């Protein structure tokens, strides 16, 4: 049973670059992380590019940031693209900060998480 429904966008015609928005649920914590992993895996399996839409008021913990980092590795090796619709904000940004991800952050990571924004 899929615990949380996700809203997958409508597939684009195959001759255009496939870039699918994937709306994530508001609960991005260890309680739901396994379901999110399955959704991400199946979305990445069928599409070349995924744009993650994280609700601004989403609840997030370390398991989510770790999952997204794992998804970036997966996408990189599979020749796929993964990006965030908006720069990290709210609890996701808080986790990045508290978890020590922002310290000496690589330029590529800054582009992914913050859309090259500098966090004070």
């Amino acid at each position, binding site marked *: 049973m899929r615990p949380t429904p996700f809203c997958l966008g409508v597939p684009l015609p195959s001759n255009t670059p496939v870039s699918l928005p994937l709306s994530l649920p508001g609960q991005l*914590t*260890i*309680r739901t*992380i*396994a379901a*999110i*992993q*399955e959704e*991400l*895996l199946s979305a*990445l399996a069928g599409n070349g590019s995924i744009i993650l839409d994280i609700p601004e008021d989403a609840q997030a*913990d*370390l*398991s989510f940031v*770790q*999952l997204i*980092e*794992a*998804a970036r*590795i*997966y*996408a990189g*090796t599979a020749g796929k693209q993964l990006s965030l619709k908006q720069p990290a904000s709210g609890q996701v940004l808080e*986790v990045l900060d*508290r*978890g*020590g*991800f922002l*310290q*000496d952050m690589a330029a590529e990571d800054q582009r992914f998480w913050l859309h090259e924004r500098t966090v004070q």
Partner: protein
Amino acid sequence: MSFPDPIAVFRTEAAELLEQVETGLLDLNHDLTDKEQVDAVFRGLHTLKGSGAMFGFEALAAFTHHCETAFDQVRKGIVPATHDLVTAVLSATDHMRALIEVPNGDHDAVSETLLAKLRAAVTAAGGGGAVAAPAAIAASAAPNTPAAPAAPATTTYKMRFSLPANSMANGTNPLGLLDELRDLGECRIKADQSSIPSLDMLMPTDLYLTWDIVLTTEQPRSAIDDVFIFVMDEMQLDLEVVDVPSAPAAAQPAPAAAPATPVATADPPAAPAVSSEHAPAAAKANPVADAKQAKSAENVRVPAERLDELMDRVGELVIAQSRLSQLAGVSGDLQLRAVSEDVERLSGELRDTMMVLRMVPVTHLFGRFRRLVHDLAIETGKSIELITEGETTEVDKSVIERLADPLVHLVRNSCDHGLESAQERVAAGKSETGRIYLTARQQAGEVIITIKDDGRGINRDRVRAKAESSGLITPNANLTDQELLQLIFQPGFSTAQQVTNLSGRGVGMDVVKRTIDALRGTINVVSHNGQGSEISLAIPLTLAIIDGLLVRVGNGRYVIPLSAVEECLELSVDEDMRSRGRSFISLRDSLVPFIRLRELFHTGTAPDPFQKVVVISTGSERVGLVVDQIIGDHQTVIKGMSKLHHDVATFSGATILGDGGVALILDVGHLVAEGQHQEAHLRAAG
């Protein structure tokens, strides 16, 4: 790829935590000054609270918080540990189980009652009202070390730490630990993500991160240890002092100097800038924890149902191997025979390995009786000591699971009926404290579990009177001592004059008998007036595969468990003729009753000219089974009987033979009892 449900994982972990907390409490109850147990209980409660909150068990977290607060006071020496406090928290652990099982149930009333008891216990112990005070659930392990009397010096530490992979799933919040480190002073924290695998390989609830931290603090080193107090046993922490403590009184801008030492991001842990004079300070934080971690990594948790599945497969393999052996034997192909023998050896080894995997020590089973006896002592007002022996004895896990209820009934019965009150015991010249011995040992293919008490013993006259009045036996029936004692296992039988909370309703002892019968076990009762009773349960070590003796009776084949076989004899035609009507054979000067299985099973076939007697026994009782042919030994994979046959007492199961045929497995206990009954009947008839 499928992952275990985190909630189910939490429930399993929580059950183990509660068991540890309970063990700690019971140990503490024996020695109220045992600081180690106080810490263990506190840690357990803290972890339970944290993981409960993380997985959405808010009611559990809130309730556990109060118990944790109480134990925090004990830990800090604000209140002493008392028996009342231990009992209050023990009761609370039961409620925690309920809160885990039914998180959204209506628990408020029970919670409030238990917390009132807890508050009373803390107050009586001399504590304040901290338990009652509404407090935030969030852990607050911020260091509360007293400020240094003199001007504080700052020290810069460089550390690298990682937590066990399952720590998030267990409820540890690494972000909380990092926050606590930040509270200690100026802190630079960098997450090392190099161990994160690709998404398809990721166990999403596992933690793959390591942190490199540079902390400049005025707090002592112990403040850092306090941050990690709940994970210290399992974590990996490398800590070095990288800057000399410097007093601000020297008017140096020390706090600014320390952060100026950057973390070498390319090579964070390997190049500590430690001056030689401080080198001795650079040491692994916790070598004991390293060893523990290494040890825990050697164990793998496997769901019980997977073991059952594996057991089924091994069973199928044993059956297939049996068919192969038969085919190889018939074919005469030497190469096929060689392969068949190899497969037979390997499947035998696989079977033995599998059996070992399923064996678990009875420690956990016995552990729960400490709590039971503790509670029973309070309920009955008796002083009771539980002494356990042979806890390392290993038994098949499915047997252990099914033994729990019968043992609870027996221990309850011993506490309630067996042991006298303190006054009665003193009057009888015994010590005030009644003793209950719970022991386990292996003997041949069985495990013997004994429950013994030093109480008043079973009153045989009362047993007989009760059995006669309830029509279980006829007045003045001629019964052996064992038969009389076994009457206590009859349904509805109770000699207790008072019905108590614990026993005396006649429910329970018959359940014991039924369960032990279902396990193909036997019960033996010994009782001495005024000295106590001893009930021994003899249970087969496994319920899955046994070595059997395959025999033929008429056209059917049957398996007799080899562990019960004493010897095999030939029953000559003369002897057979002579014994007609008597059904006894003389075996080394003693008469052994025998049962002609051909007649018992109504085969309708003529007896073979050279019938065999297989002598089987359970303990001291023996009976011979007359069969037509002994085929040989047979690795028997036990299959349960269908529901339609569950009341057929003569057979305990069935097995599939190498040729695809079915053989029924004889229920040794039942047949021996039948034989003994027959013997008693014939003796009575003269």
